[in-house]
C-alpha cells in the first residue's frame, strides 16, 4: 500500500538505525507518547535496532487505557438499558469496569455494537427512531473531529435520539505532567503524529522551550519512528531543544483549521481524570452547553464514583513509563487480553497488549518485517 510499504523497508530501517548509532555518544531516554507507536516499536522490534545507550519509555497515549473506571461503569449502566443501542469502538468492549465489561453486557442481552466511525452511530439513530442511540466518545485530538462532526450532523438533522458519553482527552497537558514530575526521566519526546495532523504543533513549541526538551512530531511506521529517534538524538547530542516535524507528509505546523473549528464548535476544554494517573487540569474535552442535549450524562444521569476492587495490576505505573509490562506479577498469566485486569492489556494501543501479543518475553527477539503482511 502506498505511503505504508516504503516505510517498512528493512534495508532503509537498518540504514537509519546505523545513522542513529553513529550520532549517539551518551545515554538518552526518549518517550513515545502514543500507544500506536508503542505497538509499532514492539511489533517491528524498532527498539532492538537501537544502540544500548538509547532507552525508549512508553507513554500514556492510549485513550482506552486512561478512561476512568467511573465512565466505564456509566457506559455499562447505559448499555444494559433495554431502550438503548450502545455504540463503541471495538477496543472498549473488554475494558474492565468495577464489576463487568461491555462484552458481558452484550452477552447478557444488551444491544452493544462496534462502530468504525461516530457518524455510523448517527445513522443508526436515524434508522431506529424508537431507540436511544448512545456513542462512547473515547479518544485524543485525533478522534475529536470525528465525534464532534457526529454531534453537528445529528444537530443539523434534528436527531433527538442520539447522545454521547464523552471521555475525550488531550495530549499536551499529559506531556507537561510527565515533564514537570519530580522524578521525570524523559529527555526527549516523539509526539503523536496523528494528533498533530489535527492540532498542529505550536503547543509543543512552548513545552520544548519551557522544559528544554526536544519534541519530534513522528509518524507511525517503523522508518518514521527510527527517523524521529534520529532527529531527537541529534538534538540531544547538540544540546538543542526544539520541535521538529518528521511527519511532514501529513502534518502542517498549524494543523487542520477546519478540524479544529469543528472541535471547538462542539467541545470545550475541561479537567479530566486519567485512569492510573489522576486528574490532569485542562486535559479533557466536554460538550459545550449549546450541545448539552446530546450529553448522555444529562440524559441518563451522572456517573457514580467508581469502586474498583484492588487488583495486582500495575497499569498506572506502566502508563507513566515507570514500569515495563513484564515487570507486573500478573503479566501473561493472571492478566491476558482475554481476561484482562487492566486496560493496557486490552487496547490495541496498550503497552501490555503489545508486549503480550508480540511475545516480548526476556529472551525473545522480533525481527523487522518478520510479521509484515
Amino acid at each position, binding site marked *: *500500500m*502506498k*505511503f*505504508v510499504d*516504503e*516505510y517498512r523497508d528493512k534495508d*532503509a530501517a537498518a*540504514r*537509519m538505525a546505523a*545513522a542513529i548509532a*553513529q550520532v549517539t555518544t551518551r545515554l538518552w531516554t526518549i518517550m513515545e507518547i*502514543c*500507544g*500506536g507507536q508503542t505497538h509499532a516499536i514492539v511489533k517491528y522490534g524498532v527498539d532492538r535496532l537501537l544502540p544500548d545507550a538509547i532507552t525508549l519509555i512508553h507513554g500514556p*497515549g*492510549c*485513550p*482506552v487505557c486512561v478512561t476512568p473506571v467511573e465512565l466505564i461503569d456509566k457506559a455499562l449502566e447505559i448499555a444494559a438499558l433495554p431502550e438503548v443501542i450502545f455504540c463503541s*469502538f471495538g*477496543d472498549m468492549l473488554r475494558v474492565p469496569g468495577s464489576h463487568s465489561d461491555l462484552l458481558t453486557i452484550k452477552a447478557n442481552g444488551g444491544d452493544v455494537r462496534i462502530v*468504525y*466511525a*461516530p*457518524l*455510523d452511530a448517527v445513522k443508526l439513530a436515524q434508522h431506529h427512531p424508537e431507540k436511544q442511540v448512545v456513542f462512547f466518545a*473515547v*479518544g*485524543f485530538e*485525533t*478522534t475529536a*473531529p*470525528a*465525534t464532534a*462532526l457526529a454531534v*453537528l*450532523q445529528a444537530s*443539523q438533522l434534528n436527531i433527538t435520539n442520539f447522545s454521547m458519553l464523552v471521555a475525550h482527552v488531550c495530549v499536551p497537558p499529559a506531556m507537561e505532567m510527565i515533564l514537570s514530575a519530580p522524578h521525570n526521566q524523559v529527555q526527549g519526546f516523539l509526539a*503523536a503524529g*496523528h*494528533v498533530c*495532523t*489535527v492540532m498542529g504543533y505550536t503547543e509543543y513549541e512552548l513545552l520544548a522551550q519551557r522544559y528544554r526538551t526536544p519534541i519530534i512530531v513522528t509518524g*507511525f511506521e517503523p*522508518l*518514521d519512528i527510527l*527517523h524521529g529517534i534520529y532527529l531527537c538524538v541529534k538534538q540531544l547530542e547538540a544540546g538543542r531543544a526544539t520541535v521538529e516535524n*518528521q511527519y*511532514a*507528509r*501529513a*502534518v*502542517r505546523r498549524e494543523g*487542520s483549521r*477546519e*478540524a479544529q473549528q*469543528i472541535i471547538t464548535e462542539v467541545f470545550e476544554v475541561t479537567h479530566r481524570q486519567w485512569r492510573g494517573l489522576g486528574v490532569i487540569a485542562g486535559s479533557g474535552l466536554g460538550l459545550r452547553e449549546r450541545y448539552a442535549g446530546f450529553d448522555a450524562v444529562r440524559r441518563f444521569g451522572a456517573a457514580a464514583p467508581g469502586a474498583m476492587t484492588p487488583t495486582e495490576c500495575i497499569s498506572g505505573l506502566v502508563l507513566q513509563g515507570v514500569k515495563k509490562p513484564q515487570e507486573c506479577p500478573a503479566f501473561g498469566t493472571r492478566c491476558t487480553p482475554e481476561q484482562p485486569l487492566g486496560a493496557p492489556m486490552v*487496547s*490495541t*494501543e496498550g503497552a501490555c497488549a503489545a508486549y503480550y501479543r508480540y511475545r516480548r518475553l526476556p529472551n525473545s527477539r522480533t525481527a523487522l518485517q518478520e510479521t509484515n503482511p
Partner: protein
Amino acid sequence: MCLAVPGKILSITDEDDALLCAARVSFGGIVKEISLAGVPEAKLGDYVIVHAGFALARLDEQEAQRVFTTLRQMDETSR
C-alpha cells in the same frame, strides 16, 4: 486508537455544505465512505490519511520522499 490509514480518493459527493462533504476512499482496494469536512481542499486522486471515518489530512507526495532523501545523503557522506 489514533491509528489512521492512508487511502486514495475515488469520488467526491456533490455537496454544498462542507460539513456533509464525503468521498469514496480506497484503502488498498477496500472502499469506504469518508468525511472530507476536515480537508475541503482534497481532490480526486489525492491520498488522505483517515481515522474513524474522518480524513485528517491530505498526504504530501514531496514531503513523503524526505526521509529517503535524508538516507541517500547520509549514504553519500559516509562513502
